[in-house]
C-alpha cells in the first residue's frame, strides 16, 4: 500500500496566531505533528486549549493557517470525518443517557440507525462504560463523564484524536486503561494529541511533546530530543558504582562538568554536565581503569526537568 503524501499525514500549523481582543491566545505557532501520541504541555493559560480549538475549527486563527491531514478546519464536512475532539468542557446536552449521547451525535454524520448503534456500542465498550450506557449522563461521576466524552470523540473511528486533559478525574485503574487505549490507538497509526499540565502523565504516554508557555511553543519533539536541544542546560546523570568518591575526582577533568555530588545512599554519583556525549566517552575510559560501574542513567531526562528549565520552576510547579 502506498503511504499517504506527507502533507496528508501531518497536523500542520503554519505561523498561527490567535488573539482574543488584546489578549494573546497563541502566537506564531508553527508545528508539524506526526502520528503517535503527542502531548501539549503547559500550565493553565499557556495556550493548549486554544491550540486544540484551532486544530478543530472551533475558533479561527487571527493569522496563519491550520491543516489537519491536508484538510482546512473551514471544511467541517471533511475535517470531522478525520478528527474527533474531546473538549475540556464538562457539559452535555440535557436528558441524554450515555448511549443516547453517542448514538445521537453519530446520527449527525448522516449514517443509518444500525451503523450508528453499532459504532456507539463499540465506542462505549472501548472506554468500558457498557454497564452505565443506559444511565443518564447527569448521574455519572466525573471519571465516567470523561470516558463518555472520550467515547464520543472516537466513536466515528477518526484518524486524529484531539483530547483536552483526558485523564483528569480518572481513578488510577481507569487512568492506566485509558493510557493503554491511547497507546493502542497510536499503534494503529492515528494521531493522539493530548493536553496535560500533569507532567508525570506526559512522561508516561508521549511519543512527542510540545511545550507551551504564555502562548508560545518553547520546545517540541521527542522528549529526549527536546532535552538535547538545550545545550546550556546541564543534564543530570546518576552513575551507580563501587567508588563514587574516586569517580568524582576524575570527572572534573572535563570543563563541561558543572557539578558532581555523592548520592544520598552513598552508592552512586550524581553528575551535572553540559556535554553528555563527552562525559559518556570519559566514563568509558574510567571504567577501563578499574572503577566498577553498575549503571548509568539520566536522572532528569523527563519533561518535568525540561519544562522547569524552559519556563522556570515557578510555572512548572503550578
Amino acid at each position, binding site marked *: 500500500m502506498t503511504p499517504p503524501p506527507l502533507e496528508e499525514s501531518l497536523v500542520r500549523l503554519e505561523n498561527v496566531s490567535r488573539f*482574543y481582543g488584546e489578549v494573546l491566545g497563541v502566537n506564531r505557532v508553527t508545528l508539524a505533528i506526526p502520528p503517535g501520541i503527542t502531548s501539549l504541555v503547559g500550565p493553565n493559560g499557556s495556550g493548549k486549549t486554544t491550540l486544540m*480549538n484551532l486544530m*478543530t*475549527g*472551533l*475558533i*479561527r486563527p487571527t493569522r496563519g493557517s491550520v491543516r489537519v491531514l491536508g484538510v482546512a478546519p473551514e471544511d*467541517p*464536512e*471533511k*475535517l*470531522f*470525518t478525520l*478528527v*474527533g*475532539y474531546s*473538549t475540556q*468542557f464538562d*457539559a*452535555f*446536552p*440535557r*436528558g441524554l443517557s450515555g448511549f443516547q449521547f453517542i448514538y*445521537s*451525535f453519530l*446520527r*449527525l*454524520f*448522516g*449514517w443509518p440507525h444500525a451503523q450508528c448503534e453499532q459504532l456507539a456500542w463499540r465506542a462505549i465498550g472501548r472506554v468500558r462504560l457498557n454497564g452505565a450506557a443506559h444511565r443518564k449522563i447527569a448521574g455519572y461521576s466525573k471519571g465516567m463523564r470523561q470516558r463518555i466524552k472520550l467515547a*464520543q470523540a472516537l466513536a466515528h473511528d477518526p484518524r486524529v484524536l484531539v483530547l483536552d486533559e483526558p485523564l483528569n478525574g480518572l481513578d488510577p485503574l481507569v487512568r492506566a486503561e485509558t493510557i493503554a487505549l491511547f497507546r493502542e490507538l497510536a499503534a494503529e497509526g492515528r494521531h493522539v494529541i493530548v493536553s496535560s499540565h500533569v507532567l508525570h502523565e506526559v512522561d508516561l504516554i508521549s511519543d512527542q511533546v510540545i511545550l507551551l508557555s504564555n502562548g508560545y511553543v518553547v520546545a517540541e519533539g521527542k522528549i529526549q530530543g527536546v532535552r538535547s536541544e538545550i545545550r546550556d542546560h546541564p543534564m543530570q546523570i546518576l552513575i551507580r558504582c563501587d567508588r563514587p568518591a574516586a569517580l568524582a575526582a576524575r570527572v572534573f577533568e572535563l570543563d563541561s562538568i558543572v557539578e558532581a555530588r555523592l548520592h544520598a545512599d552513598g552508592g552512586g554519583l550524581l553528575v551535572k554536565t553540559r556535554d553528555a556525549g563527552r562525559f559518556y566517552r570519559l566514563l568509558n575510559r574510567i571504567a577501563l581503569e578499574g572503577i566498577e560501574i553498575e549503571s548509568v542513567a539520566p536522572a532528569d531526562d523527563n519533561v518535568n526537568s525540561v519544562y522547569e528549565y524552559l519556563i522556570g520552576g515557578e510555572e512548572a510547579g503550578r
Partner: protein
Amino acid sequence: MIRRYWAQMRAVIRLEMKKTFLSRRGLWVYLIALAPVLMFAGHDLSMMRTREERRAIAAAHPVPAGALLAVQPGMTREEVTARLGQPNLDARQIRFAGGRVRRELLSYTDGQSRYVFGFADGQLQSITVRPEETLAQDRVIFATVFQFFYLRLAIFFGCVGIFTNLFRGELIEKSLHYYLLAPMRREVLLAGKYAAGLIAAAAIFTSSAALQLWLLSMPYDSSLPGREIAAYLGVAALACLGYGSVFLAAGLFFRNPLLPAAGVLVWESANPFLPSALKKISVIYYLQSLCPVAAPPDREINPLLALLISSSEPASTVFAVAGLFAVAAAVLVLAARRARLLEINYGTE
C-alpha cells in the same frame, strides 16, 4: 449529498425536539399558549350556566308568546305584570334628596333573551333586551383576542422562548460544540434547529388555536366555516415561521436576545402608526392581512393617537404568505452567515 443533508437535519431535529417540547424551562410557553384556551373555556362555562338559568326561569315563569314584545313604554307596572305575569327579578328603590322617587326593575326571560323593564314612579320608562350571545359576536371577540393577544404577545413571546434558546441556550450550557464537531455544514445545523423550533412552536400554538376555535363554537349549534378555521391555524403557524426566524437570528447575533426581542415588540406594536412602506417590514402586517375576521378598532384609544394611525390596504393572501416566507428566508440567510463564523468561546458567554 442532498440525502445526507436531509439525514443530518433529521438527526438535529430529533435531538432538539425533546429539549424543546419537554424542557422544564419552557413550561411558561405552554402556559401562555393555553391562557386564551382557559379564557374561552371560562366563557363557555359562564354562557352555558346563563343559558340554563334562563331556561329554568322561563320554565318557572312562563311568558306568553309575543307578550314581551308587546310591552310599550308608558305602561304601568300593573299592566305589565297583568300581561307577563310575575317577574323573576323584582324591584329596587332609590331615594332622591328632593323627594321620594320610586324606581323599579322587572326582569323576564323567554328562555333565550332577558328583558329588563325599568319603571319610575310606576310607569315603564326603559326596556333593555339582553339577547343570548351569538356566534357572530363571538367571532369578533375571537378575532380581537387572536390578533391583539395571541399573535402579538403569546406567539411572539413563545417564539422568543423557543427560538432564541436553540443556539443561545446551548452556548450558555456549553454544549453547542458537539454539533460543531460533526461533519455537517453549519447551514444544515441552522436549518435543522429552525425546523425543530418551528415544529414545536407550530404544534403548540396551532393546537392551542384549534382548541380555542373548538371552544368558541362549542355552545352553538352551528360552527365556524372550515376555511376560517384553516385560516386561523395557518396564521398561527405562519406567525411561528416569521417570528421564529427573527428570534433564531437574535440568539445568534446577540448575547442577550431579550434586548432585540424588546426592540421587535416595539416595532411590531408601532405597526399601525407606521407609513405604508414601513408596515411591510414587519411580521404582524402580513399576519393581520391573513386573518379572516378584522379586529374592531379600539374605541377607547386616545383621539390624538387615533389621528396617527395610518390606514393601508391589507396585503393579498398570496402576497402576505409570500412576504412572510421572504422575511423569514432573508433573516435565515443572515443567520446562516453568522452561524458559519460562529466560534466556541464559552468563557465570554
